[in-house]
């Protein structure tokens, strides 16, 4: 990959999208496919009875299902992240007798046309006997709070705590304690392609192919088989192009299970396309977490101790990724710093809102926001420069791999101080501090803020997954096959969703085999063809884990190609090398066979080295020994209009280290994309509910994702410190951008406005209404 060579495009396979030849689930032509519409609860908490008679009788309707219809047939939805002692809801794909959030699926209508299905859906009668609603953890945790689940003693899904050292002593001996409550608001991943499912029955194998926009085809397949009580070989999942996901498509959904059932039941093809309004209430949102944090500080800036309580508002049901974000946040709580005395508590609470799930960063942004805000306050209180304060607390490079005090996190490799210096220099930090101060003296509310971050990537060691409750392993399997003509096919469980993983795997394989990239094809998204991957494409694991599996498998192919090539050349295997698409004797270009000739020989099998099997195909698994910790820092300059409270983010410098960058252009794309999502979360985006639990955001008019003019000047700097635990040295980077941005912007606003903003900026999004100086 030649960076800087403009005609050597970083992702040539992207050309078809520019021509309008992307191929998403809604684009699949399935003549005669039926259409499904999901009827959803309009109450936040109620007992319900459902009458489908009128809907069933409507023209063009083939089937109407409600909860009682499927309850005896379906298993409850699986939970991706199970922890010991966590409570379950027994949720099935359609509500039975009771609804707990606006948007909960209540019935499914199947008809011959979208119009007929939509009309029949209006005829489904749902009678609601409303119950009192709880809309916040505080409300849900009160003694007398209405309970969402009668068989639970309270509204807590699960809770846990981890300790390291002696936190009480640390706080007793502190020179100052900084404490706060840091709130990350509820946001939508808001991929531009909402969800879509096309389930196609095939009589030839009495099974169903489920085309769905997902990050985790194997997990969806497992969930469908489990919930419908059918053997897995009757279910195939295929993923075409995915129009963005960001975590919101990483869990199996009720609609996938319902559509598969309907298809099998009717022996027909049936399609469901999510509307944007549905996406806002039915796709899993992210964040909605409060981190109560206290730091015990020494006068010289060292962090003596940390106490925190992470409270995750899970919404109405603990399915999908369940407690995961809170647990992941607990793991990441101590960040890049050496903190020997730690107490981290987590609790996950149900409320009458849409169930939350995975969203880019998955717990890390929430705790980063708290930690980096608190450190900023500590710096002010102690009179130490914020950057210097970080420096004094970093885990040094030579101490790595370094476990955190709770034992949850292993910082594998990194040069934190060097990264900070690199970014400060790019930002011209010292001068910017002075300029901002001068501006403020002249009446302009300018401010500088920073946030350092660490990010768990390459999820993850299967044993770790098991230990922390993830229902699957974290390994990856890759198959690499050289075809009789010498081209190579890579079969991967990774799923592209815009990040370019298919390009990365293609190049890793091509590099390993010294063949042109054009000779490698990557097959993905098909559970029938593609190898199983434990966790889908999430946890920033595509390049590090998927790529490592491909590298190892390609390496095995490479060995076989060399062995057969040596055999054909009648040379000693030790004498030959693989170079420029052929095997040749080192130093003797005349004695050479092409990869194509090697492949032909392998598939003819007329003469192969002793003990060599015909064909060329290799399988490799990769199960990492550790997570890989990517890290970096964001620096922001803002100007706030005191009269209006409007925030102008003027400049961001973002430093990151994701280990070896296999494709630097794609890395940059991920970082910048994440930064802009972070800006959205910091300043604009929020899924709000009213006092009755009615969602206030049902269209893009009410949900402000950033557009081009909202993006400030962004400069990137990077280091490449390989992870010792990954063959290709690569760490993940997909979630980096979004992690430190809210804290950096919040700190900058606080710097700009002074003490009056110190509490206001602890709640995201930071709204202009709350910054106006009257």
């Amino acid at each position, binding site marked *: 990959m030649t960076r800087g060579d403009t005609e050597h495009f970083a992702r040539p396979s992207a050309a078809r999208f520019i021509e309008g030849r992307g191929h998403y689930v809604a684009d699949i032509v399935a003549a005669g496919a039926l259409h499904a519409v999901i009827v959803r609860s309009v109450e936040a908490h109620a007992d319900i009875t459902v009458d489908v008679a009128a809907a069933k009788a409507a023209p063009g309707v083939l089937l109407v299902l409600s909860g009682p219809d499927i309850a005896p047939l379906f298993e409850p939805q699986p939970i991706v992240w199970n922890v010991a002692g966590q409570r379950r809801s027994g949720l099935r794909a359609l509500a039975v007798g009771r609804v707990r959030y606006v948007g909960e699926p209540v019935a499914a209508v199947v008809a011959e*046309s979208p*119009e007929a299905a*939509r*009309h029949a859906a209006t005829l489904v009668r749902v009678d609601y006997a409303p119950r009192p609603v709880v809309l916040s953890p505080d409300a849900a945790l009160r003694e007398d709070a209405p309970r969402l689940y009668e068989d639970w003693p309270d509204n807590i899904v699960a809770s846990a705590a981890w300790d390291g050292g002696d936190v009480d002593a640390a706080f007793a001996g502190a020179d100052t304690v900084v404490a706060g409550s840091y709130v990350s608001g509820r946001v939508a991943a808001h991929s531009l392609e909402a969800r879509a499912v096309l389930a196609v029955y095939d009589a030839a194998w009495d099974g169903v192919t489920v085309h769905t926009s997902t990050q985790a085809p194997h997990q969806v397949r497992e969930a469908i088989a489990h919930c419908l009580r059918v053997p897995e070989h009757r279910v195939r999942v295929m993923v075409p192009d995915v129009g963005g996901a960001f975590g919101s498509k990483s869990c199996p959904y009720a609609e996938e299970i319902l559509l598969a059932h309907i298809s099998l039941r009717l022996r027909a093809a049936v399609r469901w396309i999510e509307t944007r309004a549905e996406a806002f209430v039915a796709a899993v949102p992210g964040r909605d977490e409060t981190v109560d944090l206290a730091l015990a500080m020494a006068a010289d800036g060292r962090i003596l101790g940390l106490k925190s309580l992470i409270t995750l508002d899970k919404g109405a049901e603990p399915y999908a990724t369940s407690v995961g974000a809170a647990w992941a946040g607990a793991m990441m709580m101590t960040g890049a710093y050496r903190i020997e005395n730690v107490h981290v508590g987590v609790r996950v609470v149900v409320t009458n809102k849409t169930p939350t799930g995975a969203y880019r960063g998955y717990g890390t942004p929430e705790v980063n926001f708290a930690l980096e805000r608190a450190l900023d306050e500590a710096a002010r209180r102690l009179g130490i420069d914020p950057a210097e304060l970080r420096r004094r607390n970093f885990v040094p490079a030579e101490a790595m791999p370094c476990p955190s005090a709770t034992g949850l996190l292993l910082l594998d490799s990194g040069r934190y101080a060097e990264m900070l210096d690199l970014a400060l220099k790019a930002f011209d930090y010292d001068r910017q501090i002075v300029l901002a101060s001068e501006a403020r003296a002249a009446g302009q509310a300018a401010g500088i803020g920073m946030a350092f971050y660490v990010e768990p990537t390459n999820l993850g060691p299967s044993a770790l997954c098991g230990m922390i409750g993830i229902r699957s392993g974290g390994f990856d399997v890759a198959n690499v096959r050289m075809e009789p003509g010498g081209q190579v096919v890579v079969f991967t469980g990774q799923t592209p969703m815009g990040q370019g993983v298919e390009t990365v795997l293609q190049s890793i394989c091509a590099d390993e085999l010294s063949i042109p990239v054009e000779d490698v094809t990557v097959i993905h998204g098909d559970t029938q063809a593609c190898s199983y991957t434990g966790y889908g494409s999430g946890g920033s694991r595509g390049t590090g884990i998927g790529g490592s599996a491909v590298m190892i498998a390609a390496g095995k192919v490479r060995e076989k190609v060399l062995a057969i090539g040596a055999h054909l050349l009648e040379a000693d295997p030790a004498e030959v090398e693989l170079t420029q698409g052929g095997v040749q004797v080192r130093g003797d270009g005349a004695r050479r066979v092409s990869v194509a000739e090697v492949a032909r020989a392998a598939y003819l099998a007329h003469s192969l080295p002793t003990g060599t099997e015909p064909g060329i195909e290799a399988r490799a698994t990769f199960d990492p020994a550790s997570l890989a910790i990517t890290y970096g820092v964001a620096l922001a300059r803002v100007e706030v*209009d005191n*009269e*209006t*409270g*409007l925030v*102008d983010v003027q400049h961001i410098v973002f430093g990151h280290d994701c280990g070896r960058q296999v494709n630097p252009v794609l890395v940059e794309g991920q970082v910048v994309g994440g930064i802009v999502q972070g800006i959205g979360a910091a300043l*604009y985006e929020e899924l709000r509910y009213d006092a009755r639990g009615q969602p206030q955001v049902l269209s893009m*008019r009410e949900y*402000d994702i*950033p*557009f*081009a*003019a*909202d993006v400030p000047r962004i400069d990137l700097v990077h280091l490449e410190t390989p992870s010792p635990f990954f063959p290709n040295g690569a760490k993940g980077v997909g979630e980096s951008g979004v992690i430190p941005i809210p804290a950096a912007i919040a700190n900058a606003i606080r710097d700009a406005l002074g003490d009056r903003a110190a509490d206001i900026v602890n709640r995201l999004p930071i709204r*202009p*209404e709350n910054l*106006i100086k*009257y």
Partner: protein
Amino acid sequence: MAVPAASPHEPSYHTPTTAREAAALLARHGARGRFLAGGQTLIPELCRAPRALDAIVDLRNIPEFGRIQRVGDHIEVGAMVTISAARRALAADFPVIDTCFRHTANSAVRNRATLGGSIALADPASEISTFLLAYDAEVLLEGAGGGRTVAIRALLHVPLTHGTLVTGVRIPVPARDRASFTEFLRRRSGGRSLAMALARIAPGKTSVTVSGGVTQPVCLSGTSPSEALAALDARRADFESDAVRAWVVAAARRALAEAGA
């Protein structure tokens, strides 16, 4: 080419060539008929309630609805002139229109949204309403009783009777004045307006037309900017919150300052 069969519930679709014909068509269908101008508001409504209408009366074939012409000391703009087209065509006589309409919806919606549709919608946070009010526009209507003219101000607070058709607007061409427009948006790129102000300063007369939050545009005037601001201050209670008030006042001050600069 597979075309879905129109269901029996599809509304009838009409393309009359005169305003009178259009008004008559709508009168025939009452509440179950709607005028279709640019469609930027009606079409999402149609999709939310597909069976609510019996008739759609598309106004695009009425020739005079596309007019932009100087009539004496007024400019007449037909109801179907798009926001984009109006922004271009009126720029010479109303230089402030370029910034004023810059954040109406987005550039593509502006290519279809119409002046008439905008007036009929009377969205409080409408740059179009603010502009028309600031320039004392009159709205030309066609209804059951024939044609009439009303000041834009009257239409901002009392919705048009269903079936009344906006046929155009008549805007007096301003004598030399300096005008400036300030708007605060939640996002720099656009989205919902928080508050806006269009200031006009002429010898002996200053006006500032503001809107904010859910409050319809209102025009405050005086002999000087400070008088106009005082008039605005007297109307503080019109605005729904401290924040909206703050934005409205800030927008007014800045627009006046820039106009006077």
